[in-house]
Protein backbone atom coordinates (compact mmCIF):
# COMPACT_ATOMS: atom_id res chain seq x y z
CA UNK A 1 0.00 0.00 0.00
CA UNK A 2 1.35 3.38 -0.95
CA UNK A 3 1.04 6.61 0.93
CA UNK A 4 -2.10 8.69 0.44
CA UNK A 5 -0.10 11.84 -0.09
CA UNK A 6 2.40 11.35 -2.85
CA UNK A 7 4.60 13.28 -5.15
CA UNK A 8 3.21 13.81 -8.62
CA UNK A 9 5.03 11.60 -11.03
CA UNK A 10 7.75 13.11 -13.13
CA UNK A 11 11.03 11.55 -14.24
CA UNK A 12 12.28 11.67 -10.64
CA UNK A 13 10.90 8.32 -9.35
CA UNK A 14 12.50 6.50 -12.28
CA UNK A 15 15.89 7.88 -11.38
CA UNK A 16 15.50 6.66 -7.81
CA UNK A 17 14.44 3.16 -8.74
CA UNK A 18 16.81 2.79 -11.71
CA UNK A 19 19.87 1.44 -9.83
CA UNK A 20 17.90 -1.38 -8.24
CA UNK A 21 16.17 -2.32 -11.50
CA UNK A 22 19.42 -2.22 -13.44
CA UNK A 23 21.25 -4.45 -10.99
CA UNK A 24 18.51 -7.05 -10.62
CA UNK A 25 17.96 -6.98 -14.38
CA UNK A 26 21.57 -7.78 -15.20
CA UNK A 27 22.53 -9.93 -12.23
CA UNK A 28 19.24 -11.58 -11.35
CA UNK A 29 16.80 -11.88 -14.24
CA UNK A 30 19.37 -12.45 -16.94
CA UNK A 31 21.04 -15.41 -15.12
CA UNK A 32 17.70 -16.74 -13.86
CA UNK A 33 16.21 -16.81 -17.34
CA UNK A 34 19.41 -18.31 -18.68
CA UNK A 35 19.09 -21.11 -16.12
CA UNK A 36 15.56 -21.72 -17.30
CA UNK A 37 16.67 -21.70 -20.95
CA UNK A 38 19.70 -23.92 -20.37
CA UNK A 39 17.58 -26.47 -18.53
CA UNK A 40 15.93 -27.27 -21.88
CA UNK A 41 19.24 -27.54 -23.75
CA UNK A 42 21.68 -30.39 -24.12
CA UNK A 43 25.33 -29.55 -24.75
CA UNK A 44 27.56 -31.94 -26.62
CA UNK A 45 30.46 -33.28 -24.51
CA UNK A 46 32.89 -30.73 -25.93
CA UNK A 47 30.64 -27.77 -25.20
CA UNK A 48 30.67 -26.69 -28.85
CA UNK A 49 27.00 -26.88 -29.72
CA UNK A 50 23.75 -27.38 -27.90
CA UNK A 51 20.35 -28.57 -28.94
CA UNK A 52 16.88 -27.96 -27.64
CA UNK A 53 15.74 -31.18 -25.98
CA UNK A 54 12.48 -30.25 -24.23
CA UNK A 55 12.33 -31.99 -20.86
CA UNK A 56 15.14 -34.47 -21.38
CA UNK A 57 17.32 -32.95 -18.65
CA UNK A 58 14.43 -33.13 -16.21
CA UNK A 59 13.77 -36.71 -17.24
CA UNK A 60 17.40 -37.62 -16.65
CA UNK A 61 17.24 -35.84 -13.31
CA UNK A 62 14.08 -37.47 -12.02
CA UNK A 63 15.12 -40.97 -13.05
CA UNK A 64 18.59 -40.61 -11.58
CA UNK A 65 19.23 -42.63 -8.42
CA UNK A 66 21.93 -40.12 -7.55
CA UNK A 67 19.51 -37.22 -7.50
CA UNK A 68 17.01 -39.19 -5.48
CA UNK A 69 19.57 -39.95 -2.80
CA UNK A 70 20.77 -36.33 -2.81
CA UNK A 71 17.17 -35.18 -2.34
CA UNK A 72 16.59 -37.62 0.49
CA UNK A 73 19.85 -36.63 2.14
CA UNK A 74 18.94 -32.92 1.87
CA UNK A 75 15.54 -33.51 3.45
CA UNK A 76 16.87 -35.65 6.30
CA UNK A 77 19.79 -33.35 6.97
CA UNK A 78 17.60 -30.22 6.89
CA UNK A 79 15.06 -31.83 9.20
CA UNK A 80 17.74 -32.72 11.75
CA UNK A 81 19.32 -29.25 11.58
CA UNK A 82 15.98 -27.44 11.92
CA UNK A 83 14.70 -29.53 14.82
CA UNK A 84 17.95 -29.57 16.78
CA UNK A 85 18.89 -25.92 16.35
CA UNK A 86 15.35 -24.71 17.11
CA UNK A 87 15.05 -27.02 20.13
CA UNK A 88 18.38 -26.12 21.69
CA UNK A 89 17.90 -22.40 21.02
CA UNK A 90 14.43 -22.47 22.56
CA UNK A 91 15.70 -24.08 25.76
CA UNK A 92 18.53 -21.55 26.02
CA UNK A 93 16.20 -18.61 25.32
CA UNK A 94 13.70 -19.71 27.97
CA UNK A 95 16.48 -20.10 30.53
CA UNK A 96 18.10 -16.79 29.58
CA UNK A 97 14.74 -15.04 29.84
CA UNK A 98 14.41 -16.23 33.44
CA UNK A 99 17.80 -14.81 34.41
CA UNK A 100 17.58 -11.43 36.10
CA UNK A 101 21.23 -10.52 36.53
CA UNK A 102 23.76 -11.22 33.81
CA UNK A 103 21.21 -11.72 31.06
CA UNK A 104 23.15 -9.39 28.79
CA UNK A 105 26.32 -11.41 29.26
CA UNK A 106 24.56 -14.64 28.35
CA UNK A 107 22.98 -12.97 25.34
CA UNK A 108 26.34 -11.75 24.12
CA UNK A 109 28.06 -15.10 24.64
CA UNK A 110 25.25 -16.96 22.90
CA UNK A 111 24.92 -14.68 19.86
CA UNK A 112 28.41 -13.76 18.64
CA UNK A 113 28.83 -17.05 16.75
CA UNK A 114 26.34 -15.60 14.25
CA UNK A 115 29.25 -13.61 12.80
CA UNK A 116 31.35 -16.69 12.00
CA UNK A 117 31.03 -17.56 8.30
CA UNK A 118 29.80 -21.09 7.51
CA UNK A 119 33.02 -21.76 5.61
CA UNK A 120 35.10 -20.62 8.59
CA UNK A 121 33.03 -22.79 10.91
CA UNK A 122 33.62 -25.70 8.55
CA UNK A 123 37.40 -25.30 8.57
CA UNK A 124 37.43 -24.92 12.35
CA UNK A 125 35.48 -28.14 12.72
CA UNK A 126 37.74 -29.83 10.20
CA UNK A 127 40.71 -29.26 12.50
CA UNK A 128 38.88 -30.14 15.71
CA UNK A 129 37.85 -33.49 14.25
CA UNK A 130 41.11 -34.05 12.37
CA UNK A 131 42.63 -37.44 13.14
CA UNK A 132 46.17 -36.07 13.55
CA UNK A 133 45.66 -33.14 15.88
CA UNK A 134 41.94 -32.91 16.66
CA UNK A 135 41.15 -33.29 20.33
CA UNK A 136 37.48 -33.95 19.58
CA UNK A 137 38.51 -36.81 17.32
CA UNK A 138 40.51 -38.31 20.19
CA UNK A 139 37.57 -37.91 22.53
CA UNK A 140 35.19 -39.68 20.16
CA UNK A 141 37.60 -42.52 19.43
CA UNK A 142 38.22 -43.06 23.14
CA UNK A 143 34.54 -44.01 23.47
CA UNK A 144 35.14 -46.85 21.03
CA UNK A 145 33.46 -45.20 18.03
CA UNK A 146 35.84 -45.50 15.09
CA UNK A 147 35.01 -42.05 13.78
CA UNK A 148 35.86 -41.77 10.06
CA UNK A 149 33.92 -39.06 8.20
CA UNK A 150 36.08 -39.60 5.09
CA UNK A 151 34.72 -43.09 4.52
CA UNK A 152 31.53 -43.35 6.54
CA UNK A 153 28.43 -41.52 5.36
CA UNK A 154 26.91 -41.74 8.81
CA UNK A 155 29.93 -40.16 10.53
CA UNK A 156 30.17 -37.43 7.89
CA UNK A 157 26.46 -36.64 8.26
CA UNK A 158 26.72 -36.45 12.05
CA UNK A 159 29.64 -34.06 11.72
CA UNK A 160 27.78 -31.86 9.20
CA UNK A 161 24.66 -31.71 11.33
CA UNK A 162 26.65 -30.90 14.46
CA UNK A 163 28.45 -27.95 12.87
CA UNK A 164 25.33 -26.68 11.06
CA UNK A 165 23.40 -26.68 14.33
CA UNK A 166 26.25 -24.97 16.16
CA UNK A 167 26.25 -22.20 13.57
CA UNK A 168 22.47 -21.69 13.57
CA UNK A 169 21.73 -21.62 17.32
CA UNK A 170 22.53 -17.89 17.74
CA UNK A 171 19.97 -16.66 15.18
CA UNK A 172 17.22 -18.80 16.65
CA UNK A 173 18.21 -17.77 20.15
CA UNK A 174 17.97 -14.06 19.31
CA UNK A 175 14.48 -14.46 17.83
CA UNK A 176 13.15 -16.70 20.58
CA UNK A 177 14.45 -14.34 23.26
CA UNK A 178 12.90 -11.35 21.46
CA UNK A 179 9.65 -13.31 21.20
CA UNK A 180 9.70 -14.21 24.89
CA UNK A 181 10.41 -10.66 25.93
CA UNK A 182 7.51 -9.34 23.87
CA UNK A 183 5.05 -11.37 25.97
CA UNK A 184 3.40 -8.74 28.20
CA UNK A 185 4.21 -8.86 31.93
CA UNK A 186 0.48 -8.89 32.70
CA UNK A 187 0.04 -12.13 30.76
CA UNK A 188 2.93 -13.72 32.59
CA UNK A 189 1.63 -12.58 35.98
CA UNK A 190 -1.85 -13.83 35.25
CA UNK A 191 -0.42 -17.16 34.18
CA UNK A 192 1.59 -17.36 37.35
CA UNK A 193 -1.49 -16.85 39.49
CA UNK A 194 -3.52 -19.45 37.64
CA UNK A 195 -0.97 -22.15 37.22
CA UNK A 196 1.54 -23.46 39.72
CA UNK A 197 3.68 -25.69 37.55
CA UNK A 198 6.29 -23.87 35.43
CA UNK A 199 6.35 -26.72 32.90
CA UNK A 200 2.63 -26.57 32.34
CA UNK A 201 2.72 -22.82 32.22
CA UNK A 202 5.33 -23.03 29.48
CA UNK A 203 3.35 -25.42 27.30
CA UNK A 204 -0.08 -23.82 27.77
CA UNK A 205 0.81 -20.11 27.78
CA UNK A 206 4.33 -19.34 26.63
CA UNK A 207 4.71 -21.87 23.84
CA UNK A 208 1.46 -21.01 21.99
CA UNK A 209 2.41 -17.33 22.15
CA UNK A 210 5.80 -18.20 20.67
CA UNK A 211 4.32 -20.29 17.86
CA UNK A 212 4.36 -17.51 15.23
CA UNK A 213 8.06 -16.92 15.97
CA UNK A 214 8.73 -20.65 15.78
CA UNK A 215 6.99 -21.07 12.44
CA UNK A 216 8.71 -18.06 10.99
CA UNK A 217 12.04 -19.42 12.24
CA UNK A 218 11.27 -22.77 10.70
CA UNK A 219 11.18 -21.20 7.24
CA UNK A 220 14.39 -19.27 7.95
CA UNK A 221 16.06 -22.48 9.15
CA UNK A 222 14.99 -24.54 6.16
CA UNK A 223 16.39 -21.81 3.91
CA UNK A 224 19.60 -21.93 5.93
CA UNK A 225 19.92 -25.71 5.73
CA UNK A 226 19.29 -25.65 1.98
CA UNK A 227 21.35 -22.68 0.86
CA UNK A 228 23.64 -21.19 3.49
CA UNK A 229 25.36 -24.44 4.39
CA UNK A 230 27.23 -24.49 1.09
CA UNK A 231 30.45 -23.17 2.64
CA UNK A 232 30.20 -25.68 5.44
CA UNK A 233 29.84 -28.65 3.13
CA UNK A 234 32.55 -27.42 0.79
CA UNK A 235 35.06 -27.15 3.63
CA UNK A 236 34.02 -30.20 5.67
CA UNK A 237 33.09 -33.05 3.36
CA UNK A 238 32.80 -31.76 -0.24
CA UNK A 239 30.04 -34.32 -0.61
CA UNK A 240 32.29 -37.20 0.41
CA UNK A 241 32.15 -40.11 0.74
CA UNK A 242 31.10 -40.56 -2.91
CA UNK A 243 28.65 -37.68 -3.11
CA UNK A 244 26.55 -39.05 -0.27
CA UNK A 245 26.71 -35.81 1.74
CA UNK A 246 25.95 -33.42 -1.15
CA UNK A 247 22.87 -31.29 -0.65
CA UNK A 248 20.77 -30.27 -3.65
CA UNK A 249 22.43 -26.85 -3.76
CA UNK A 250 25.90 -28.35 -3.51
CA UNK A 251 25.08 -30.67 -6.40
CA UNK A 252 24.08 -27.73 -8.62
CA UNK A 253 27.61 -26.44 -8.14
CA UNK A 254 29.25 -29.86 -8.52
CA UNK A 255 27.42 -30.75 -11.74
CA UNK A 256 27.45 -27.28 -13.27
CA UNK A 257 30.82 -25.88 -12.33
CA UNK A 258 33.02 -28.86 -11.61
CA UNK A 259 31.24 -31.38 -13.87
CA UNK A 260 30.41 -28.78 -16.57
CA UNK A 261 27.01 -30.37 -17.28
CA UNK A 262 25.14 -27.09 -17.73
CA UNK A 263 21.80 -28.56 -18.79
CA UNK A 264 21.51 -30.94 -15.87
CA UNK A 265 22.74 -28.34 -13.39
CA UNK A 266 20.25 -25.75 -14.70
CA UNK A 267 17.39 -28.22 -14.42
CA UNK A 268 18.37 -28.66 -10.77
CA UNK A 269 18.37 -24.87 -10.33
CA UNK A 270 14.83 -24.73 -11.69
CA UNK A 271 13.71 -27.51 -9.32
CA UNK A 272 15.15 -25.52 -6.41
CA UNK A 273 13.46 -22.35 -7.69
CA UNK A 274 10.12 -24.12 -7.52
CA UNK A 275 10.89 -25.45 -4.04
CA UNK A 276 11.72 -21.97 -2.76
CA UNK A 277 8.52 -20.57 -4.27
CA UNK A 278 6.54 -23.31 -2.57
CA UNK A 279 8.26 -22.52 0.71
CA UNK A 280 7.44 -18.83 0.42
CA UNK A 281 3.85 -19.66 -0.39
CA UNK A 282 3.57 -21.92 2.63
CA UNK A 283 5.00 -19.12 4.70
CA UNK A 284 2.47 -16.59 3.45
CA UNK A 285 -0.66 -18.70 3.20
CA UNK A 286 -0.68 -21.79 5.31
CA UNK A 287 1.31 -20.62 8.32
CA UNK A 288 -0.21 -17.17 8.64
CA UNK A 289 -3.72 -18.54 8.36
CA UNK A 290 -3.40 -21.49 10.69
CA UNK A 291 -1.62 -19.80 13.53
CA UNK A 292 -3.87 -17.30 15.22
CA UNK A 293 -5.21 -16.94 18.70
Amino acid at each position, binding site marked *: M*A*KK*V*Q*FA*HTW*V*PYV*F*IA*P*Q*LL*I*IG*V*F*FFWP*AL*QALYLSFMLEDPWGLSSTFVWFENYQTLFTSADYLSTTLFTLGYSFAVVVLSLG*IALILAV*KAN*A*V*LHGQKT*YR*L*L*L*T*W*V*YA*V*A*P*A*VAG*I*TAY*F*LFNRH*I*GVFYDAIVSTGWLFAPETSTFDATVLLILVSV*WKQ*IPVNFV*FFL*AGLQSIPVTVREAAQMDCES*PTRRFWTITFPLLAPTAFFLMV*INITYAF*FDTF*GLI*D*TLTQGRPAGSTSTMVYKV*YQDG*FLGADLGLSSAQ*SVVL*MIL*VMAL*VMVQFRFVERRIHY
Partner: protein
Amino acid sequence: MQRATFFDHLILWAGVIFLVAPIWLLLASSTHSVDTLIKEGLQWLPGSEGLSAYKTALMTASGFTDTATGLRMLVNSTIMGLGFAVGKIIIAMTAAYTLVYFRVPMAQFLFWLIFSTLLLPLEVRIVPSYEVVSQLGLLNSYTGLILPLIASATATFYFRQFYKTIPEELLEAAQLDNANAWLFFKDILIPLSRTMMAAMFIIMFVVGWNQYLWPLMMTTEESYYTIVMGIKNILSVVREGRVPEYNVAFALVILAMLPPVLIVIIFQRWFIQGLVESEK
Protein backbone atom coordinates in the same frame (compact mmCIF):
# COMPACT_ATOMS: atom_id res chain seq x y z
CA MET B 1 8.52 -13.58 37.32
CA GLN B 2 10.14 -16.86 38.13
CA ARG B 3 13.75 -16.76 39.26
CA ALA B 4 16.44 -18.67 37.46
CA THR B 5 17.68 -21.63 39.44
CA PHE B 6 21.15 -23.06 39.66
CA PHE B 7 20.06 -25.67 37.14
CA ASP B 8 19.04 -22.96 34.65
CA HIS B 9 22.48 -21.39 34.87
CA LEU B 10 24.03 -24.80 34.38
CA ILE B 11 22.14 -25.25 31.09
CA LEU B 12 23.06 -21.77 29.94
CA TRP B 13 26.72 -22.39 30.69
CA ALA B 14 26.59 -25.67 28.81
CA GLY B 15 25.24 -23.72 25.81
CA VAL B 16 27.94 -21.08 26.15
CA ILE B 17 30.71 -23.70 26.35
CA PHE B 18 29.28 -25.55 23.34
CA LEU B 19 29.40 -22.35 21.29
CA VAL B 20 32.67 -20.88 22.58
CA ALA B 21 34.90 -23.94 23.08
CA PRO B 22 35.67 -24.69 19.40
CA ILE B 23 36.84 -21.16 18.70
CA TRP B 24 38.75 -20.95 21.97
CA LEU B 25 40.62 -24.15 21.14
CA LEU B 26 41.68 -22.75 17.79
CA LEU B 27 42.66 -19.41 19.33
CA ALA B 28 44.73 -21.04 22.09
CA SER B 29 46.37 -23.44 19.64
CA SER B 30 47.39 -20.61 17.33
CA THR B 31 49.80 -19.41 20.02
CA HIS B 32 51.72 -22.71 20.10
CA SER B 33 54.57 -23.91 17.92
CA VAL B 34 53.93 -26.26 15.00
CA ASP B 35 55.97 -28.97 16.78
CA THR B 36 53.81 -28.88 19.89
CA LEU B 37 50.67 -29.08 17.78
CA ILE B 38 51.92 -32.02 15.73
CA LYS B 39 53.14 -33.91 18.79
CA GLU B 40 50.38 -33.13 21.27
CA GLY B 41 47.41 -32.01 19.17
CA LEU B 42 45.28 -28.94 19.77
CA GLN B 43 45.89 -27.04 22.99
CA TRP B 44 43.37 -25.71 25.52
CA LEU B 45 45.77 -23.23 27.09
CA PRO B 46 47.67 -20.39 25.40
CA GLY B 47 51.25 -21.23 24.48
CA SER B 48 54.59 -19.49 24.55
CA GLU B 49 54.70 -18.36 20.93
CA GLY B 50 52.38 -15.41 21.49
CA LEU B 51 51.11 -13.73 18.39
CA SER B 52 54.05 -14.59 16.15
CA ALA B 53 51.86 -16.83 13.97
CA TYR B 54 49.60 -13.85 13.34
CA LYS B 55 52.53 -11.79 12.15
CA THR B 56 53.47 -14.52 9.67
CA ALA B 57 49.86 -14.91 8.56
CA LEU B 58 49.38 -11.19 8.01
CA MET B 59 52.68 -10.23 6.43
CA THR B 60 53.68 -13.21 4.29
CA ALA B 61 51.97 -15.43 1.75
CA SER B 62 52.61 -18.27 4.24
CA GLY B 63 52.58 -21.25 1.89
CA PHE B 64 48.81 -21.47 1.56
CA THR B 65 48.74 -18.82 -1.13
CA ASP B 66 51.56 -17.91 -3.50
CA THR B 67 51.41 -14.13 -3.40
CA ALA B 68 48.41 -13.00 -1.33
CA THR B 69 49.30 -12.07 2.23
CA GLY B 70 46.74 -12.28 5.02
CA LEU B 71 46.65 -8.51 5.07
CA ARG B 72 45.84 -8.35 1.35
CA MET B 73 42.95 -10.77 1.82
CA LEU B 74 41.67 -8.81 4.83
CA VAL B 75 41.72 -5.62 2.76
CA ASN B 76 39.80 -7.34 -0.03
CA SER B 77 37.24 -8.67 2.42
CA THR B 78 36.83 -5.19 3.90
CA ILE B 79 36.24 -3.75 0.44
CA MET B 80 33.70 -6.45 -0.31
CA GLY B 81 31.91 -6.08 3.04
CA LEU B 82 31.77 -2.28 2.80
CA GLY B 83 30.82 -2.25 -0.87
CA PHE B 84 28.11 -4.81 -0.29
CA ALA B 85 26.63 -3.03 2.74
CA VAL B 86 26.80 0.50 1.33
CA GLY B 87 25.63 -0.51 -2.14
CA LYS B 88 22.75 -2.50 -0.82
CA ILE B 89 21.58 0.26 1.51
CA ILE B 90 21.77 2.92 -1.23
CA ILE B 91 19.81 1.02 -3.86
CA ALA B 92 17.33 -0.20 -1.26
CA MET B 93 16.63 3.26 0.16
CA THR B 94 16.17 4.87 -3.24
CA ALA B 95 14.06 2.06 -4.70
CA ALA B 96 11.84 1.92 -1.61
CA TYR B 97 11.43 5.70 -1.86
CA THR B 98 9.99 5.36 -5.35
CA LEU B 99 7.72 2.51 -4.31
CA VAL B 100 6.26 4.31 -1.30
CA TYR B 101 6.24 8.00 -2.20
CA PHE B 102 5.44 8.14 -5.90
CA ARG B 103 2.44 7.30 -8.00
CA VAL B 104 4.00 5.61 -11.02
CA PRO B 105 2.33 3.53 -13.70
CA MET B 106 2.86 -0.20 -13.24
CA ALA B 107 3.82 0.30 -9.59
CA GLN B 108 2.41 -3.11 -8.73
CA PHE B 109 4.43 -4.71 -11.51
CA LEU B 110 7.64 -3.02 -10.33
CA PHE B 111 6.92 -4.19 -6.81
CA TRP B 112 6.65 -7.82 -7.86
CA LEU B 113 9.63 -7.54 -10.16
CA ILE B 114 11.79 -6.41 -7.27
CA PHE B 115 10.44 -8.76 -4.65
CA SER B 116 10.55 -11.86 -6.83
CA THR B 117 14.33 -11.70 -6.34
CA LEU B 118 13.72 -12.93 -2.81
CA LEU B 119 12.74 -16.26 -4.33
CA LEU B 120 16.04 -17.27 -5.76
CA PRO B 121 19.29 -17.09 -3.78
CA LEU B 122 22.55 -16.63 -5.64
CA GLU B 123 23.60 -20.20 -4.85
CA VAL B 124 20.84 -21.51 -7.12
CA ARG B 125 21.65 -19.38 -10.17
CA ILE B 126 25.37 -19.57 -9.56
CA VAL B 127 26.50 -21.06 -12.86
CA PRO B 128 24.58 -18.70 -15.19
CA SER B 129 25.56 -15.77 -12.94
CA TYR B 130 29.17 -16.73 -13.47
CA GLU B 131 28.61 -16.78 -17.23
CA VAL B 132 27.02 -13.33 -17.19
CA VAL B 133 29.79 -11.80 -15.12
CA SER B 134 32.41 -13.41 -17.31
CA GLN B 135 30.71 -12.11 -20.49
CA LEU B 136 30.74 -8.63 -19.00
CA GLY B 137 34.48 -9.01 -18.37
CA LEU B 138 34.06 -8.55 -14.63
CA LEU B 139 35.90 -11.66 -13.39
CA ASN B 140 38.67 -10.72 -10.96
CA SER B 141 37.29 -7.27 -10.16
CA TYR B 142 35.67 -5.69 -7.14
CA THR B 143 32.64 -4.73 -9.24
CA GLY B 144 32.13 -8.34 -10.22
CA LEU B 145 32.55 -9.43 -6.62
CA ILE B 146 30.01 -7.00 -5.22
CA LEU B 147 27.25 -6.27 -7.75
CA PRO B 148 25.77 -9.78 -8.23
CA LEU B 149 25.53 -10.16 -4.47
CA ILE B 150 23.55 -6.92 -4.22
CA ALA B 151 20.96 -8.17 -6.71
CA SER B 152 18.28 -9.04 -4.18
CA ALA B 153 15.57 -7.14 -2.40
CA THR B 154 15.98 -7.99 1.29
CA ALA B 155 16.97 -4.47 2.30
CA THR B 156 14.46 -2.86 -0.10
CA PHE B 157 11.66 -4.77 1.56
CA TYR B 158 12.82 -3.63 4.94
CA PHE B 159 13.10 0.08 4.04
CA ARG B 160 9.71 -0.04 2.34
CA GLN B 161 8.17 -1.28 5.58
CA PHE B 162 9.97 1.41 7.51
CA TYR B 163 8.94 4.31 5.22
CA LYS B 164 5.33 3.25 5.53
CA THR B 165 5.46 3.88 9.29
CA ILE B 166 6.58 7.51 8.78
CA PRO B 167 3.66 9.87 9.40
CA GLU B 168 2.06 11.34 6.28
CA GLU B 169 2.02 14.79 7.85
CA LEU B 170 5.75 15.06 7.29
CA LEU B 171 5.29 14.91 3.55
CA GLU B 172 2.38 17.35 3.65
CA ALA B 173 4.45 19.79 5.67
CA ALA B 174 7.40 19.39 3.35
CA GLN B 175 5.21 20.04 0.32
CA LEU B 176 3.81 23.18 1.95
CA ASP B 177 7.38 24.35 2.33
CA ASN B 178 7.93 23.69 -1.36
CA ALA B 179 10.44 20.93 -0.77
CA ASN B 180 11.02 18.88 -3.88
CA ALA B 181 11.41 15.10 -3.97
CA TRP B 182 15.17 15.19 -3.58
CA LEU B 183 15.11 17.60 -0.65
CA PHE B 184 12.50 15.51 1.14
CA PHE B 185 14.64 12.42 0.68
CA LYS B 186 17.85 14.10 1.75
CA ASP B 187 16.63 16.31 4.60
CA ILE B 188 13.84 14.22 6.08
CA LEU B 189 13.98 10.55 5.11
CA ILE B 190 17.71 9.98 5.48
CA PRO B 191 17.96 11.59 8.95
CA LEU B 192 14.88 9.64 10.09
CA SER B 193 16.40 6.40 8.81
CA ARG B 194 19.70 6.80 10.62
CA THR B 195 19.24 4.07 13.21
CA MET B 196 17.79 1.72 10.62
CA MET B 197 20.71 2.39 8.31
CA ALA B 198 23.15 1.58 11.10
CA ALA B 199 21.36 -1.65 11.98
CA MET B 200 21.20 -2.69 8.32
CA PHE B 201 24.83 -1.78 7.83
CA ILE B 202 26.00 -4.08 10.64
CA ILE B 203 24.07 -7.07 9.30
CA MET B 204 24.98 -6.45 5.68
CA PHE B 205 28.66 -5.96 6.42
CA VAL B 206 28.78 -9.30 8.22
CA VAL B 207 26.86 -11.02 5.41
CA GLY B 208 29.11 -9.45 2.76
CA TRP B 209 32.32 -10.30 4.62
CA ASN B 210 31.20 -13.91 5.07
CA GLN B 211 30.51 -14.59 1.38
CA TYR B 212 32.27 -17.73 0.24
CA LEU B 213 30.93 -19.37 -2.91
CA TRP B 214 30.75 -16.28 -5.09
CA PRO B 215 34.32 -15.08 -4.44
CA LEU B 216 35.47 -18.66 -4.84
CA MET B 217 34.11 -18.81 -8.37
CA MET B 218 34.89 -15.23 -9.33
CA THR B 219 38.51 -14.86 -8.33
CA THR B 220 41.35 -16.71 -9.95
CA GLU B 221 43.90 -13.98 -9.32
CA GLU B 222 45.20 -14.06 -5.78
CA SER B 223 45.24 -10.29 -5.55
CA TYR B 224 41.42 -10.45 -5.36
CA TYR B 225 41.19 -13.30 -2.83
CA THR B 226 39.02 -12.56 0.16
CA ILE B 227 40.04 -14.10 3.45
CA VAL B 228 36.97 -16.29 3.93
CA MET B 229 37.52 -18.00 0.59
CA GLY B 230 41.32 -17.75 0.80
CA ILE B 231 41.50 -20.03 3.82
CA LYS B 232 40.15 -22.81 1.63
CA ASN B 233 43.73 -23.17 0.44
CA ILE B 234 44.66 -24.43 3.89
CA LEU B 235 42.50 -27.44 3.17
CA SER B 236 44.10 -27.99 -0.22
CA VAL B 237 47.47 -28.21 1.51
CA VAL B 238 46.14 -30.71 4.05
CA ARG B 239 44.37 -32.79 1.40
CA GLU B 240 47.55 -33.03 -0.65
CA GLY B 241 48.99 -34.84 2.35
CA ARG B 242 51.41 -32.09 3.33
CA VAL B 243 51.70 -31.06 6.98
CA PRO B 244 50.63 -27.41 7.12
CA GLU B 245 52.02 -24.82 9.47
CA TYR B 246 49.15 -25.38 11.83
CA ASN B 247 49.66 -22.29 13.95
CA VAL B 248 49.70 -19.97 10.93
CA ALA B 249 46.67 -21.76 9.49
CA PHE B 250 44.77 -21.26 12.75
CA ALA B 251 45.83 -17.63 12.88
CA LEU B 252 44.37 -17.12 9.39
CA VAL B 253 41.10 -18.77 10.40
CA ILE B 254 40.88 -16.56 13.51
CA LEU B 255 41.66 -13.48 11.42
CA ALA B 256 38.90 -14.44 8.99
CA MET B 257 36.28 -14.34 11.73
CA LEU B 258 37.68 -11.54 13.88
CA PRO B 259 36.30 -8.41 12.15
CA PRO B 260 32.65 -9.56 11.85
CA VAL B 261 32.71 -11.01 15.37
CA LEU B 262 34.09 -7.76 16.82
CA ILE B 263 31.47 -5.74 14.97
CA VAL B 264 28.65 -7.91 16.27
CA ILE B 265 29.98 -7.70 19.82
CA ILE B 266 30.63 -3.94 19.78
CA PHE B 267 27.40 -2.98 18.04
CA GLN B 268 25.33 -5.66 19.75
CA ARG B 269 22.23 -3.49 20.13
CA TRP B 270 22.08 -2.42 16.48
CA PHE B 271 22.99 -5.91 15.41
CA ILE B 272 20.05 -7.48 17.21
CA GLN B 273 17.69 -4.79 15.99
CA GLY B 274 18.91 -5.22 12.43
CA LEU B 275 18.61 -8.98 12.62
CA VAL B 276 15.11 -9.01 14.04
CA GLU B 277 13.90 -6.28 11.68
CA SER B 278 15.56 -7.50 8.50
CA GLU B 279 14.16 -11.02 8.75
CA LYS B 280 10.61 -9.92 9.48
